[in-house]
């Protein structure tokens, strides 16, 4: 990506294209505003008073600042519980997936390993042919995992895409390092843990973030496999708050609070669910771009 910054088109003869410069900036600014304004609007609504929200007066700036919506969110034990549940299982998923991905990518990166091609085929086939929703559902059911948090972990434990990214990186590490360690009497485990992994921290961070964000944002499998509201992830909880607020399982809207308070609470819930992503966003952006670039480089 450094090339993007290095090359300076249009500077060659010191020419300035003022017309197109303005037009490009206007278009990009509009696009970027469209990307960001919806989030700002919801934040503004979440900290506004009831009256201006009813009157539809809140656009991008909050009016009559009122944080009671957040008090409702934080006082709702199911919301906090969903947040912790999401964090807990995102961490477990990321940790287990990393172990599994490393253990798969490392042997696959060894050109000399007999059976490597067969392994690669075994790993690639599920990328193109899967059982589909129902076959997977019936299998999870057969394993007795319905309504267990493990149903959100085990079926998606190792991503083939991430494995290939990591394998490509491992392949780029000079084999001489491995050879000299072998001469010193290291076995493959020791080489992996002491030499290869410390060299791969950036790639490992990228992939860990890929996993964490995927698990954090995933909603479909919670919908398919989880029935008990105590095991709802934050995404599932948010869906219920925003889209099913009339149903009885949303405790916050009960208790005689009127619909408008619910609107500010809904917005607070959206912000509450977005904040974790916004916190890690600076890291995400850096590593994800790298990840996409590694992934784009074919063998």
């Amino acid at each position, binding site marked *: *990506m450094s*090339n*993007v910054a290095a*090359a300076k088109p*249009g500077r*060659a003869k010191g020419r300035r*294209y003022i017309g*197109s*410069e303005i037009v490009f900036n206007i*278009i*990009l600014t509009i*696009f970027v505003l469209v*990307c960001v304004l*919806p*989030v700002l*609007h919801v934040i503004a609504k979440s900290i506004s008073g009831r009256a201006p929200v009813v009157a539809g007066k809140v656009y991008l700036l909050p009016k009559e600042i009122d944080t009671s919506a957040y008090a409702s969110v934080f006082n709702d034990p199911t919301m906090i519980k969903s947040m912790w549940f999401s964090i807990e299982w995102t961490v477990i998923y990321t940790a287990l997936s990393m172990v*599994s991905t490393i*253990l*798969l990518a490392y*042997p696959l990166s*060894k*050109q000399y390993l*007999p059976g490597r091609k067969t392994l690669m085929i*075994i790993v690639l086939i599920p990328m*193109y*042919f*899967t*059982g*589909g*929703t*129902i*076959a*997977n*559902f*019936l*299998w999870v059911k*057969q394993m007795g995992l319905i309504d267990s948090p493990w149903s959100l972990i*085990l079926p*998606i434990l*190792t991503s083939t895409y991430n494995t290939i990214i990591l394998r490509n990186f491992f392949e780029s590490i000079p084999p001489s390092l491995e050879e000299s360690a072998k001469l010193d009497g290291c076995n*493959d*485990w020791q080489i992996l843990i002491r030499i290869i992994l410390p060299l791969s921290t950036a790639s490992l961070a990228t992939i860990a973030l890929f996993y964490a964000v995927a698990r954090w944002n995933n*909603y*479909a499998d919670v*919908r*398919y496999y989880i029935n008990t509201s105590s095991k709802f992830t934050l*995404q*599932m909880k*948010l*869906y219920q708050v*925003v*889209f099913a607020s009339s149903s009885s399982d949303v405790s916050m809207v009960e208790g005689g609070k009127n619909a408008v308070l619910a609107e500010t609470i*809904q917005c607070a819930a*959206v912000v509450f*669910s*977005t904040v974790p*992503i916004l916190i890690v*966003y600076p890291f995400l952006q850096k590593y*994800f*771009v790298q990840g996409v670039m590694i992934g784009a480089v074919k063998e």
Partner: protein
Amino acid sequence: MQKDAVKQVKYKRMGFFKAIAKYKWLYLMLIIPLSQYFLFRYAPLSGLQVAFKDFSVFKGIGGSPWATPIFKYFNEVFSSPKFWTAVWNTVKLNLLDLFFGFPIPIILAIMVYEMRSVKVKRLYQTLMYLPHFLSWVIIGSLVAKIFGTNGPINNLISQMGGTPVNFLMDEGNWVVMYVATGIWQSAGWGTIIYLAAISGVNTDLYEAAEVDGCGRLRRIWYVTLPCIMPTIVIMLILRLGQMVGIGFERPYVMMNKMVTDSADVISTFVYDRGILNRQYPFATAVDIFGSVVNMCFVIGANIVTRRMGEGGLF
């Protein structure tokens, strides 16, 4: 290449057990990931036979009798008008996504690249990538809040004296919203691959173009675009390979009861029939149809990209 070939001959001479003994640690590593693959990617395929069985939860997959005729549930699927609606909606929404969504990242990438200041470039990129990281539930909530009947857009419309528009409950409007939301979520992120392609263009070409008297727009048209054309074509073909698949979450979080005729796609149809209504054989048959068609498209796309010498995905 030659070295590789020589090495391979050597492996073939190595016996199976000898190889296992020599590389035992590497093979041991594979136990965890491979058991995951077999247990959760290959074993579930056994559930596909449900599409050919009169499935009963009590008898289990193995114990349920085969359907007579064996394609009973496929016949049911293919004679179901709702199924064809879902197939048509899947293709229609994908085509609209492709037509309106595909060019935008290219245009944005070119404009971002033309920015002189690195800081400005970074700022645009940072803000543009943001929607990609929000979950579909959050995006669906934002859409509902902004385009709902009491949302800011409708408030602005009525303030200016117009009549409020029902963006989400009207089928035609819903399709527009669906496509626009998709662009909102992915266009910025989609610029990455094109930015990489553009930054790979030889800058001598730009200078040559300028010497020949090209302005910026002409330079973009005659140098940048042709140079990134291979990337564009590859991305287009890969996108065409996904024409019959739509993930579950995006249509699900956006749809409502008023628009199901336009919004029901294969994935949501399967969810409704299979998981909600427990018509497992029927829904599995739909799944199989979707998987097979999808696989043909993806493999077709890969073959085409390979023929073009760009190396497909496998």
